């Protein structure tokens, strides 16, 4: 029996939105190579919506599938909607993750959130600069 669901395999074999965004509006990096997984998310925001989401991931099959799924779930959503994406909802969309992979590889939502926080921080700073 394969350890991964068909959905995970699909996102692993054909990951969506791989890459970097030049001059992103926000960037978030989580994890480290010691635990095995590291993810960087890049976002482009327009009218409070995630116009583009891209990622780069170092990690196992689950980590790559999670990143791909998060990017797909987030694209087009408002920032508020995107911030509601959780590891649980990502795992559900992927039709489940192996138990031991749930915590270590399921960092996508966290990386996306960090990118959004980065964007919000930059916006605040820019506003502050204008005043």
């Amino acid at each position, binding site marked *: 029996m394969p350890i991964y669901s068909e959905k995970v395999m699909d996102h*692993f*074999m054909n*990951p969506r939105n*791989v890459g*970097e965004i030049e001059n992103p509006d926000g960037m978030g*990096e989580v994890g480290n*190579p*010691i*635990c*095995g*997984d*590291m*993810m*960087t998310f890049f976002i482009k925001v327009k009218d409070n919506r995630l116009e583009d989401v891209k990622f*780069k*991931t*170092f*990690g*196992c*099959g*689950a*980590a*790559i599938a999670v990143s791909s799924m998060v990017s797909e779930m987030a694209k087009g959503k408002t920032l508020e909607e995107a911030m509601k994406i959780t590891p649980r909802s990502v795992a559900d969309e992927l039709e489940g993750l192996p138990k*031991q*992979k749930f915590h*270590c*590889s399921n960092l996508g939502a966290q990386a996306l959130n960090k990118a959004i926080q980065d964007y919000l921080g930059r916006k605040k700073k820019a506003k502050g600069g204008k005043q």
Partner: protein
Amino acid sequence: MRKVYLDHATTTPLLPEVREAMLPYLGEAFGNPSCIHEWGDAARETMETARTQVAQLIGANTDEVIFTGSGTESNNFAIKGLALAQQNKGKHIVASAIEHFSVLHSAKTLEKWGFELSLVPVDKYGMVDPEDVRKSLRKDTVLVSIMHANSEVGTIEPIQEIAKITKESNAVFHTDAVAAAGTIPVDVKGLGVDALSLAGNQFYGPKGVGALWVRKGVRIIPFLDGGVQERGRRAGTENVPAIAGLGKAAELAEASMTARTEHLTQLRDRLLTELPAAIDHVVVTGHPQHRLPGNASFCVEFIEGEAMLMLLNSQGVAVTSGSACTSRALKASHVLIAIGLPHALAQGSLLFSFGIDNIFQDVDYVLEVLPPIVDRLRQMSPLYAKFTRENKGGK
């Protein structure tokens, strides 16, 4: 699609001759070797033939071979049984940092039971320095266990030299030869060891059977209590079909070892040479000369092993990896960390282990399918992006 099995370090296929040797004992010859009727006699005779075949493989006396349920059981039996039997002399044991978990975790259990454990380091090739073993020996050292060969990086340890050192002490010397026996020449008398573990599924025998050889005169505490099977040292009705298979596999391994080694070494060396030539930033792990004939182990920089393994699997190639993600414990292989690799590099571990059915076209196929896989994962990797940014214009 082409199917290429390159995971013989994990388990080998059963040879047809071995299967044939097992079949009667899965059928009409079902007797229990402890019984003194016709059925029992037949089973016992087969078991004793197998014992002789295994003894011959390792240059041992027949009655010194104890059948077990696996290599892991042999190691548990040896570490716990030998240490406990000598504990009136002392409670210190020595093992290398790259032992199989069946040795390391048994040693940890002994620690909980009041023993002290010293771990001997290895160099960057995974080689134990016999002098380090000497330095770790104490008056109360009762057991030293150093593996014959490491299946993950392929390194063959200087067992004979270590045995010379342990002979000068009170300690009993056990070697885990699970990766070595049946693959390279192993001679217990020449090596000078006191106990040795082996397993059938490492040399085209069945799974679920192993053996522990203990030199006559060395005391060991029984591992399983019960009846008087295996002369009271390992109770439980014997797995006769598996033992028959182990014996046949041992006989075949001994007879064809030279030819097998020649073939495996050629396959191994081709991959060891050509893979780093085909892919940038690949490190060969293990010793360049003193290594198992079928072992070609690498670490590929900037990417992770499980992802490579899965993409190789999608191309019909079966390999294994010491990355954290492929282990249930989610830790990078202790062997790769012990040889001094940084964690990120250890995550990119790939182990190719050849078998006697592999051919040169299998190596060519790996060299064809792996580079695009590595390339694809590197395009996804933030570590690779970082590396290329930092080295832009550098070359």
